[in-house]
């Protein structure tokens, strides 16, 4: 009963309405495909694990005042001692940065000191032997640093470390052919080798923007306690004691030495807050795109309902005549559904091109990935279904038109 | 008042050309009441739409109140419709969303008349058709006869020189039709020129003059005995 020819003939007489619905479907498909693609990308990013156990973890940003910039070693040591002795604290460490902090150090690394270009790019974390237990990253090969391997260093004069711990991602980048444990790498343009003594399963870099996407799990830890006046304390609390330590830790630090600045905003944060702040933009963008998609689909559906209703109203008499001539309710229903399907197919065909075109354009303008065909296919199906759903109500109304309408004058 | 000479109207489709009017000649004088009759499809409605400047024509000349109308643009034609012509349609053609008062007001609005004058004219016109008390009613709340009287009031409110009626009683029962017809006759007595299209011989008989159209041309009534007979029968003095 899919009589396409008469439907096409009828559509020819409603060119404007047909074009408008097809256009709307096409544009909606283009935008929804790209928006959902953006949502997916953002959510993928948000779901990246840091490699740490993030519960019971907190950070304090500290800067000593009135001390020479690189002579704060004893003060940091005293702070760490004070923190580690607090009742709720399991372990604490002073780092230059930590995952998702937003700022940190990065460098190229080589396996051959004479190579012109670096083989990989990585972030550098500086910390003592408490780093692994505090962050609770999983050591999958080798060992942790020993206390006697830790050196104190001015951030502007860091010696090349004899031993380092790397993330699995970096290890595989440097030695793709096999275990990197025990092998050496060269940091920056240094000529002295550092031996990999430990490999951790995963440790994310401090950044979460697109620029670090190529090395977001490439990390190395150097056995260095920086003497810089600026440092980040990362504290692991005993289970369930996070809230207490959140108050007790900064208080203990201020009590030990007042000449410091712990910023009122973002100075003391649970890791949950760090994560939230880091991904705020990504999550917000995903929400925004989600809302846009929903409203867009709603408006498109409503538009189809509106125009189809108008057509049904316009053709009541014609429908009555058809009914009088023996068309069943089902025939009328399928007439309108088929009509919408035809328009929908035209719309999604144009829309698919628009979606890909829009994505290609976005790729050239912004740092964005190529749209995968799956999104377009899913979008096409979704919009066709949406169109059919939106047509259903007016089409049902049309199918209920009585054959008597045929005999009525306008 | 209304003079068409050698007028023609051709409808073109992809396939054929159809002459709705061909070498059409008619002359209606000021103050006349002319009935236009003819079988369906003969072109009487086409004649009326052209007479009312609702449609353009293909050839010939049409002088309305001394003005040759074929070269007028859309705006000028609208103005003439608005100021000189009153329409009475078979289907009344009242705007359902507007009440009686507002319906009658429509042509006056386009004339840019002051509110006070509009109101006076509307109430006068409604008074004349006996519906002043229904000014606030909506068309759907009125009977067919009343609706047609509103339509007549709307046509009268603008004091047109020429009243064009298309089967004014076509949608009405006999009694209502009589009322409407009496109203038209009264308007005519007061000086308006009326051209009425009808296929009802009885109505046609009440006009001063009959024009018969067959196949898009005016036919001399005297040469058509059938019609001659019918008219006389209607007037009750059929020739023996």
């Amino acid at each position, binding site marked *: 009963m899919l009589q396409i020819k008469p439907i096409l003939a009828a559509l020819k007489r409603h060119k404007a309405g047909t074009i408008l619905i097809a256009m709307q479907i096409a544009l909606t498909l283009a935008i929804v495909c790209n928006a959902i693609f953006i949502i997916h990308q953002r959510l993928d990013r948000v779901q990246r694990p840091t490699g740490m156990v993030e519960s019971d973890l907190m950070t304090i940003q500290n800067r000593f005042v009135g001390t020479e910039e690189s002579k704060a070693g004893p003060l940091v040591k005293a702070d760490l001692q004070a923190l580690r002795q607090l009742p709720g604290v399991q372990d604490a460490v002073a780092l230059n940065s930590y995952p998702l902090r937003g700022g940190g150090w990065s460098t190229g690394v080589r396996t051959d000191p004479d190579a012109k270009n670096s083989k990989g790019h990585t972030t550098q974390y500086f910390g003592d032997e408490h780093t692994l237990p505090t962050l609770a990253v999983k050591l999958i090969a080798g060992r942790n640093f020993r206390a006697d391997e830790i050196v104190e260093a001015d951030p502007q004069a860091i010696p090349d470390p004899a031993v380092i711990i790397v993330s699995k991602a970096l290890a595989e980048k440097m030695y793709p052919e096999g275990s990197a444990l025990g092998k050496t790498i060269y940091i920056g343009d240094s000529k002295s080798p550092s031996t990999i003594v430990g490999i951790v399963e995963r440790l994310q870099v401090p950044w979460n923007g697109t620029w670090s996407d190529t090395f977001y799990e490439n990390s190395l830890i150097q056995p260095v306690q920086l003497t810089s006046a600026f440092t980040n304390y990362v504290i692991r609390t005993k289970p369930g004691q996070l809230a207490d330590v959140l108050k007790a830790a900064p208080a203990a630090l201020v009590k030990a030495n007042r000449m410091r600045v712990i910023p009122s905003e973002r100075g003391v944060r649970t890791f949950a807050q760090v994560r939230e702040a880091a991904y705020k933009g990504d999550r917000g963008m995903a929400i925004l795109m989600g809302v846009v998609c929903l409203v867009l689909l709603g408006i498109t559906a409503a538009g189809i309902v*509106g125009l189809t209703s108008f057509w049904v109203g316009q053709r009541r008499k014609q429908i009555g005549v058809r009914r009088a001539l023996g068309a069943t309710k089902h025939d009328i229903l399928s007439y309108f559904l088929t009509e919408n399907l035809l328009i929908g197919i035209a719309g999604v065909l144009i829309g698919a091109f628009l979606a890909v075109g829009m994505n290609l354009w976005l790729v050239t303008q912004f740092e964005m990935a190529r749209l995968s065909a799956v999104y377009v296919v899913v979008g096409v199906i979704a919009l066709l279904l949406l169109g059919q759903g939106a047509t259903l109500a007016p089409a049902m109304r049309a199918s209920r038109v009585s054959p008597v309408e045929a005999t009525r004058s306008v | 008042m209304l003079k068409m000479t050698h007028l023609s109207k051709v409808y073109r489709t992809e396939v054929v050309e159809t002459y709705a009017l061909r070498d059409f000649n008619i002359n209606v004088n000021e103050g006349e009441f002319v009935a236009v009759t003819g079988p369906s499809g003969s072109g009487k409605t086409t004649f009326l*739409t052209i007479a009312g400047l609702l449609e353009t024509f293909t050839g010939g000349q049409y002088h309305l109140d001394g003005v040759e109308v074929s070269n007028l643009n859309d705006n000028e034609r609208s*103005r003439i419709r608005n100021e000189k012509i009153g329409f009475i349609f078979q289907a009344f053609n009242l705007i359902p969303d507007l009440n009686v008062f507002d319906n009658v007001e429509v042509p006056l609005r386009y004339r840019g008349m002051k509110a006070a004058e509009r109101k006076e004219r509307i109430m006068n016109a409604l008074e004349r058709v006996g519906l002043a008390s229904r000014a606030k009613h909506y068309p759907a709340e009125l009977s067919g006869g009343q609706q047609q009287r509103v339509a007549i009031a709307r046509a009268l409110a603008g004091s047109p020189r020429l009243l064009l009626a298309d089967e004014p009683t076509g949608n009405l029962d006999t009694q209502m039709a009589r009322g409407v017809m009496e109203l038209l006759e009264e308007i005519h007595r007061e000086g308006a020129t009326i051209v009425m299209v009808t296929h009802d011989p009885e109505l046609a008989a009440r006009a001063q003059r009959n024009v018969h159209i067959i196949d898009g041309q005016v036919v001399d009534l005297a040469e058509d005995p059938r019609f001659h007979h019918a008219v006389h029968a209607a007037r009750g003095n059929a020739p023996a």
Partner: protein
Amino acid sequence: MFAYYLQLGLRSLRKNPLLTLLMVLAIGCGVAASMTTYSVFRATSNNPIPQKSSQLFVPQIDNWGPDASQDNKGEPPNAMTYTDAINLMRDKRATRQTALFPAAVSIVPADPQMLPFRETSYAWYADAFAMFDIPFLYGHGWTADEDASHAAVAVIGKKLNEKLFNGANSVGRNINLNGRDYRIIGVANTWNPEPVFYDVINTNGFDDPIEVFMPFTRAVELQTTTNGNNNCSKDPGKGWDAWIGSECVWLGFWAELPSKEKADAYRQYLNGYAAEQQRSGRFRWAPNTRLRNVTEWLEYQKVVPQEAKVSLLVSLGFLLICLVNTVGLLLAKFMKRSSEIGVRRALGAPRKEIYLQFLIEAAAIGLAGGVVGLILTGLGVMGISLVFEPDIAKLATLDVSLVLLTMLLAVLSTVLAAFYPTWRAAQVQPAWQLKSN
């Protein structure tokens, strides 16, 4: 006639409240989405110093060479070495010039009950105050002599002055920075250019206003580190002096060049300077320099966040769809009334009156859509902090111009959308109704 058509329009809209609501909501949503994202875009693409944006320039000198710059489309580094900054300051080829960096200093309050705290602090040269048109509440900036003598003087911001001195004139009093006293010689009035063009590299364009200004020469003498980025192409070596003398870039530099001739001359000077460095053996490559004014610099640094652009684009697409939708619904609505139009035309309405009637009806929808859009824009601007950094989000505000723009966009876009349906309506022939069924 306007009032009449408005009345007719409203009546027609009331007659089909669902359809009307749908159109109003669609326009409201489309306009709100566009205006919300536009408010961010507007804030981020703002010209922070319109009176001087074509006179203030950032010079760039390639001290890293083609190996490094090839990764960056041949562009020189974004910041300057200490060596180059000092040489440019010494040569004084611009009308005014300054090197600058965000200094890592903390304020130690005199009151021992108060803990030390930090405020946004910059070290720069005396010229900067005049270059950047910084307004003063009390006192003034320091002089070139004080630059030369590494004087322990400071200018503080209004907010800090309120915090430390309850807003009193604090000129002549002392402020302790990093444990050392500085004499306050001026209190700057609120100076909050958005984006913060003077240090895009370290702020991405958005930060709290500066509250502490100190002489660059003094800050360097005391080995005050930068609070901003430091980029090295190779290991600078150990210690402060090695760093200062290294090819690490960490300084901002601004030159005021009030005319095109001056700017051209400065360009030549920069190339000459780079050539001289090449001759002396420091650079092993041909001069590669840039000179960008404020507008060009903000553009080059992509200060408008990617999010702002993408979401503005998506919102505009959204509005377009809403408008297509409105075109369809208006077409349905108007064509449903073709019999009314036919009658009106027969009764003498010229086309122009039909246009007027339906466009006014559309404008009424647009107006209602604008009101809905305004409410939604208000909500959107409040919720903008979900998507953007707080520094940026707080710039997006629903001010008078945004309100007017919202209404204007709503009405204009609806009227635009109504053109086709109205044109169709005006094409309805007056004769149509007369023809027998």
